């Protein structure tokens, strides 16, 4: 086929940027789509954060102050759904979009139009989900886990929630397929798998997890829908079904989902720590294998979310031990990061501060996770604030800090300007202090017996709840600094060099700042790859 001349002719049409709204709505550009994902995630982060502050305002003192219990329950369910599917996951997909093509020497994602579809499904999905706040019966109030039979008792919000989840799932699956194909097919010649930056590796494994489990969630919520409207008996014992079965199917999705939100964070931290330690990453290959091991183990630990629901002893033992096994590859990662810093010449720019806070605080979340894995102990902790404290430690100073760290690390590359590092450090210290004020007392509350998802509580829990609420408002309002710093950077930051951090490695730093509209029009040369892929 005489394709070549034609290909070049086709290309020449697209090297200039489209303008106006078409640039965004019809976009096939990984950077523009990445930007839309990140802006969307940031918006949803503040929506979900507002819900969190409503929760913490109500819990500031015992008694019912501001909202009625039904609405309070809606807030806990919606806060989780919005933060997971609206903030954290889209933020990671946005970062994947921005970074993966640049880091593997590709011009764009492999399937750019599909990429556009993946993004543009999301605003519509969230119109459905947030629309539930305004329908008869209010928003879903049975928890984000949607356990039947409680979830089936929702009002008109029920099908909206189900279809919103179908849409989010479709978006995630398409996005994940795109990442897998991009990494497997679009790497520059010479960019072997074991030369890829760890962010790419962790995202590759994340994408596998997404393709494997998002359809399972779709199946689970479809069964909920048919149980509600079409007379099936999947989750009704009277018809031979079992409500516990929903929990098994849900958590078969739900546990890999946890790693979907944290594995890319491991990748980001593995990029930031070597740069600011001025040393190559310690144990690159073991990091890759540990990530793969965590990905595999994530499929065989789901029932630790439901120990108290009743299951055979052999099942409890298996899931307890399999869960504890995860601490081995996770430990490999933690120690590798520590070894990377050992004898490094460390400096503490904002990305490094967030990465270090991740290292300490995620480890706390990991340890409380280990405590929760112990079946007899879990019987005490189940559904208490201890669980809330645990997963917020891995999600907020874990995933979220890594996302913020990533933004501070790559922002100069994206916009070609340096941001106000002093202000970013203020943002960091406010975040790091308030996040602990917010979540650490929740361990005490949980161990003392305070249940989660309640709008009122016994007076012995009053003090720590007040502390936690103060932390929440401090944390929430200090996050407003993030968009301010970004906008200020875009508008008036000082120009940043191509290699914004003096010892940053990776192909993205070989591109000018800001990166060109199509990252690599032609594959980078072997010398550039060799320079970029020094671990």
């Amino acid at each position: 086929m005489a394709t070549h001349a034609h290909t070049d002719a086709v290309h020449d049409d697209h090297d200039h940027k489209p303008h106006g709204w078409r640039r965004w709505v019809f976009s096939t550009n990984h950077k523009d789509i990445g930007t839309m994902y990140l802006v969307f995630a940031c918006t949803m982060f503040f929506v979900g954060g507002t819900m969190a502050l409503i929760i913490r305002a109500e819990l500031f003192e015992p008694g019912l102050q501001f909202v009625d219990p039904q609405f309070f329950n809606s807030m806990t369910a919606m806060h989780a759904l919005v933060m997971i599917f609206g903030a954290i996951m889209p933020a990671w997909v946005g970062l994947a979009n921005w970074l993966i093509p640049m880091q593997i020497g590709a011009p764009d994602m492999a399937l750019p139009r599909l990429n556009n579809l993946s993004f543009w499904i999301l605003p519509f999905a969230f119109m459905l989900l947030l629309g539930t706040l305004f329908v008869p019966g209010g928003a879903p109030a049975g928890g984000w886990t949607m356990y039947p039979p409680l979830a089936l008792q929702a009002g008109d919000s029920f099908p909206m929630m189900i279809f919103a989840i179908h849409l989010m799932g479709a978006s995630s699956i398409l996005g994940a397929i795109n990442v897998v194909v991009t990494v497997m097919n679009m790497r520059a010649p010479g960019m072997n798998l074991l030369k890829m930056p760890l962010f790419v590796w962790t995202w590759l494994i994340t994408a596998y997890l997404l393709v494997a489990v998002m359809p399972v969630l779709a199946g689970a919520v479809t069964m909920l829908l048919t149980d509600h409207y079409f007379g099936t008996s999947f989750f009704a014992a009277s018809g031979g079904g079992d409500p516990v079965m929903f929990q098994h199917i849900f958590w078969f999705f739900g546990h890999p989902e946890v790693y979907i939100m944290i594995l890319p964070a491991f990748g980001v931290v593995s990029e930031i720590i070597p740069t600011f330690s001025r040393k190559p990453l310690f144990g690159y290959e073991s990091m890759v294998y540990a990530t793969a091991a965590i990905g595999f183990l994530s499929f065989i630990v789901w029932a630790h979310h439901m120990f108290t629901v009743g299951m055979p002893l052999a099942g409890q033992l298996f899931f307890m031990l399999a869960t504890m096994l995860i601490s081995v590859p996770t430990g490999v990662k933690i120690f590798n990061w520590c070894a990377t810093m050992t004898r490094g010449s460390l400096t503490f720019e904002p990305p490094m501060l967030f990465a270090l806070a991740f290292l300490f605080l995620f480890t706390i979340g990991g340890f409380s996770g280990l405590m929760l894995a112990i079946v007899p102990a879990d019987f005490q902790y189940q559904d208490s604030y201890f669980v809330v404290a645990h997963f917020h430690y891995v999600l907020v100073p874990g995933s979220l800090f890594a996302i913020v760290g990533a933004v501070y690390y790559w922002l100069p590359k994206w916009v070609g300007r340096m941001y106000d590092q002093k202000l970013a450090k203020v943002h960091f210290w406010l975040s790091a202090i308030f996040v602990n004020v917010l979540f650490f007392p929740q361990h005490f509350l949980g161990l003392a017996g305070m249940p989660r998802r309640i709008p009122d509580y016994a007076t012995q829990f009053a003090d720590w709840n007040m502390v936690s609420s103060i932390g929440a408002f401090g944390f929430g309002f200090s996050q407003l600094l993030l968009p301010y710093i970004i906008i200020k950077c875009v508008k008036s930051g000082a120009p940043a060099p191509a290699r914004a951090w003096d010892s940053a490695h990776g192909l993205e730093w070989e591109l000018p700042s800001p990166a060109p509209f199509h990252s690599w029009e032609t594959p980078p040369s072997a010398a550039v790859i060799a320079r970029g892929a020094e671990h």
Partner: protein
Amino acid sequence: MATAHAPAADKYYVPHGSHWPIVGSVSLFLVMAGAVAFLNDWAGGWAFIPGALLLATMFFGWFHDVIGESRSGAYNHQVDRSFRMGMMWFIFSEVMFFAAFFGALFYARSLAVPWIGGEGVKVFNKLLLWPNYDPAWPTNGPARIGGHEDGTFQIIPAFGLPALNTAILLTSGVTITIAHHALQAGKRTQLKIFLAATFVLGFLFVGLQAEEYAHAYKELGLRLSTGIYGSTFFMLTGFHGLHVTIGAIMLVIIWLRTLKGHFTPNNHFAFEGVAWYWHFVDVVWLGLFIFVYWI
């Protein structure tokens, strides 16, 4: 191929912008919003219909553009590989969707139902809750949900229509393979005949499934609402039937394309993508035949 001088194209291909993705998003939203309105008895369920039409338009238009670009020679080898990998991973995600329902079947059949019947430590279910319940599969549960007036129902024996349907689908797997070989050998007439035979068999399968459903609903007391057996039976075979229908429509499309002279012996990704999809629905059916109908 003209690009053979470099392992990957020396200049990457990036498609131009397209309005089809946003049309797809809007149509999906209309479909979902219409379905919500319908289920909630709100006004506005009609939104489903323009949504579905728009969705069909999106598929038609998007594929029309891609086919045009492909035939104009705009795509290089790398783009072809991206499409292939994308299709494979899409099929894998479909496999996992079916896995959820197979998982529900296995869980209900080998754990939930025996437990309801009082197996092992769940003996109090038998003693206190449902003393008269016999936890044998097939079942519609201790409350005998659905079924005939007296709560009973019959099932469809494996070695009747389902066995015939198995033969039909397996044969269609053979015919599409013959069609593929014919395409690679440049035997266009053979290609057209065997491709047509494949979708005819596909629609025949769907027709017989419909026949079977009607029989189950009218005479056997086996309905979607017939307890866990009806739930798993109809959701599994129903989603499978939907996928066979979609696959058969895809087969018709590529057949029409062969009539228009599309596809060359070494450039026919769309054909292969559809063939993979067809084998996927075939394999799912084998699982259904064994675990739903037979054992």
